[in-house]
């Protein structure tokens, strides 16, 4: 099990009902972690429409997670 720092933005923040959490997870990758969170919070967004940031940098979905990693899922952006 890994301890992961999660940060949520936009609709994910609404669906999770929180902006941050520290979570213990058996998920080996960000993709597996998102699947786990979809079960927990019912996230509507498909991962194919999103990117993931690990430790504040864009990362591949299959990058192995490490103890203490900060993970943020990035919904389609709408700035400007």
């Amino acid at each position, binding site marked *: 099990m890994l301890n992961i720092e999660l*940060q949520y*933005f*936009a*609709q994910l*923040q*609404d669906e999770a009902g929180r902006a941050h959490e520290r979570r213990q997870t058996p998920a080996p990758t960000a993709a597996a972690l998102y699947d786990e969170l979809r079960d927990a919070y019912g996230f509507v967004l498909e991962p194919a*429409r999103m990117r993931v*940031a690990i430790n*504040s*940098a*864009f990362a591949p979905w299959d990058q192995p997670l490490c103890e203490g990693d900060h993970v*943020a899922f*990035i*919904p*389609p*952006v*709408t*700035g*400007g």
Partner: protein
Amino acid sequence: MNDFIMAETPVDISALRKVLLFPEAGGFCSFEGWVRQTNEGRAVSGIDYNAFVPLALTEGQAILQEAKQRFAICRATAIHRTGYLSIGETAVWIGVSAAHRDAAFDACRYIIDEIKQRVPIWKNEHYASGETGWVPCHTL
């Protein structure tokens, strides 16, 4: 120095413009994005901008670097606001100086287009009806 700025409060645009003044620059181009009173036919009272600031800063800076490599410009700078903005407030400002106008226009256009596609910022629209909603992305 980071030329891409994420700001929680209004920024003095005239000060940003001065940073772009160079003796070799013969032109300056800027773009401002403002909060508009309607979107998709709904009356809007304001927009709350949510952002992942550390990643927005690195991605925004990368866009400015790309613009410098692609176009013959002197300097480019950009700011994007976070927090709640009322109608008419400036949400994004981009300024580019260059020896000649074509590069300034092209770089300015490139930067706003890339910001809208890549920088982790999200609009939560507040409607006149009292409801709020995350603006859907139309590019994916």
